[in-house]
């Protein structure tokens, strides 16, 4: 142990000797201090209001804000550009970037950088909060990224990553952007423990991003929770999706994605829990769907998906679809609307369950009939259809519905 310590000390010694601490305040230009700094230096920014913009970091330094100094872009300019690898930035407030249709104005922009860490920063009222461009091995954590976007065209994304690899986006609080987190051509990255709320479009948006994962995030009251499009091998576990209300609102929107896993998530009070289109080989297991309008909508273009051991509770409609073709496997789910029996007492119902209710089909054809939903008459219609199915897709059924709720 002593040997190890002394070796470590020897290794660190030259760094400790060469690195200096530079202090700067509102009176001077931060850019000058940054240009003076040598690799490994620490620049400490005193508290205050800085009307400085387009600050470019070109050397691997550590930039620390004392008590959140405010950098203000006066609604006209961009603020920080990190164009070097190994930069560490923390404790700084960045606010009021400009809005432009020519360039994407960002609060903090990472350009062709690697091993950059942005942590404990506040990014307020920016078009794009943190913008990663062709960057690798970067960590974005514990940031507060807030804005108040109202429409999709004017707004930008909270954390925007393009053509990047191996990113870690962790424990950020993002709200009021177009997309909370946006991934385009991003591979091998993880999104963990973020809270993404009140975004105009999606809480998290994947485009052409393979081998990524997101877990333990909370998505609430966005246009839609998460949109995963044209991607492969995305792992989605332990997230909470709630209160996505509207005629195009979903907990998760899956479009042309394959070989992915959706497990241990909670979908509560969404208009639609999971919407799947053109998706294949997705494993959906051990999720809880409660009090949603529709728990899932699985279009006929999906194939080879497995939906098993989920809990479906208090949803208005369990499953909806758009055809009679069904190439997915449904098994061992718990459906609170299941009315079958279990004679051999093995915990699995003896009659299959058809999760598509006739009224969901009727109301899709003629939305006005929804006004009669839950009336005595519609209950009779549902019961009649259960005894003699003629409208509901017969192939979509769970042959082994559970009689007891899964403990998830």
């Amino acid at each position: 142990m002593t040997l190890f310590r002394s070796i470590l000390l020897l290794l660190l010694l030259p760094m400790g000797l060469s690195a200096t601490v530079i202090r700067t305040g509102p009176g001077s230009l931060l850019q000058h201090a940054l240009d003076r700094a040598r690799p490994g230096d620490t620049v400490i920014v005193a508290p205050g209001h800085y009307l400085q913009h387009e600050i470019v970091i070109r050397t691997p330094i550590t930039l620390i804000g004392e008590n959140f100094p405010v950098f203000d872009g006066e609604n006209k300019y961009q603020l920080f550009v990190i164009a070097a690898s190994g930069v560490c930035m923390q404790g700084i407030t960045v606010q009021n970037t400009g809005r432009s249709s020519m360039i994407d104005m960002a609060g903090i922009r990472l350009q062709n950088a690697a091993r950059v860490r942005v942590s404990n920063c506040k990014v307020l009222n920016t078009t794009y909060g943190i913008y990663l461009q062709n960057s690798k091995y970067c960590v974005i954590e514990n940031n507060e990224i807030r804005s108040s976007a109202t429409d999709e065209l004017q707004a930008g994304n909270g954390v925007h990553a393009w053509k990047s690899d191996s990113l870690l986006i962790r424990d950020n609080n993002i709200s009021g952007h177009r997309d909370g987190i946006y991934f385009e051509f991003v591979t091998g990255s993880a999104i963990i423990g973020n809270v993404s709320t009140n975004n105009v479009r999606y809480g998290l948006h994947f485009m052409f991003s393979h081998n990524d994962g997101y877990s333990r995030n909370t998505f609430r009251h966005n246009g839609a929770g998460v949109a995963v499009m044209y991607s492969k091998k995305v792992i989605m576990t332990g997230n909470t999706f709630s209160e996505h209300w509207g005629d195009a609102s979903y907990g998760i929107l899956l479009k042309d994605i394959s070989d992915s896993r959706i497990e241990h998530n909670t979908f509560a009070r969404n208009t639609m829990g999971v919407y799947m289109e053109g998706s294949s080989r997705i494993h959906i297991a051990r999720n809880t769907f409660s009090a949603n309008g529709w728990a899932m909508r699985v279009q006929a273009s999906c194939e080879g998906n497995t939906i098993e051991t989920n809990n479906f509770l208090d949803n208005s409609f369990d499953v909806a679809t758009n055809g009679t073709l069904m190439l997915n496997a449904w098994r061992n789910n718990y459906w609170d609307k299941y009315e079958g029996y279990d004679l051999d007492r093995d915990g699995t119902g003896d009659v299959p369950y058809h999760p598509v209710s006739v009224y969901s089909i009727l109301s899709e054809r003629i939305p006005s009939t929804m006004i009669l939903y839950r009336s005595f008459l519609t209950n009779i219609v549902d019961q009649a259809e259960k005894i003699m199915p003629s409208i509901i897709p017969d192939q979509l059924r769970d042959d082994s519905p559970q009689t007891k709720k899964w403990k998830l």
Partner: protein
Amino acid sequence: MRTVSKYVFLDLLKNRSILVYTAVLAVLSFTLLGLDGGSAKGLLSLLNITLLFVPVITTLFSAIYFFNSLEFIELLLSQPVKRTRILLSEYGGMALSLSAAFVVGVGFPLTVMLPVTASFVLIITGVLLTFIFTSLGLLIFVLSRDKTRGIGAAIIVSLFFTLLFDGLMMAFIFTFSDYPIDRAVVAMVGLNPVDLARILMLLQLDVAVLMGYSGALFKEFLGSSTGSLYAVGCLGLWTVVPLWLALRIFRRKDL
């Protein structure tokens, strides 16, 4: 007026039918809510029971009771009391005792076992339905000459509102589904207090699904508080209008 109301109220509390009504409601509520460990499913079954039982039993019972107390009413009329006052106090006592039965039978189990907003909405709609169908019972009593016809009318009226109306409405919706009938449908719903009560509950339990439909009906009416306000307003009218009609007719009626 208060004395007569109090007399009717106390007389009804001792009535065996009311006690049975309360007990049945209470047993149903406790079993349904106990079955599923306090989820929305029990609440839904209770909603169905409320929508079916309350109109039928309230209309029938109040009509029969009014007919039975015809002699008592005639006795009161020989006193220097206004006719409208007598009828109003009869109505008040009746509506209050039936509401009390509902609140004890359904309201109490709900507040104990499932204290959520939707439960309280269900209690309020149940009480409103009781008031409405009591006033319909009163109207039937005032309109019909003899007891047999009155009871027949009560059965028809309550079944019309609980079952037949929805069937007619569904036929209407299916027949004219190619036309913009959203507004007509909303107006039609106002004609049936049972549907209004159901929609009040729907807005509590199924907002998520109602937001999923496009179209003016769901955006403007069901998607906002307008729907609830409209339903409550119509229910209020449904209480007042039959009562007012009954009073008007009774004032001139030759007994």
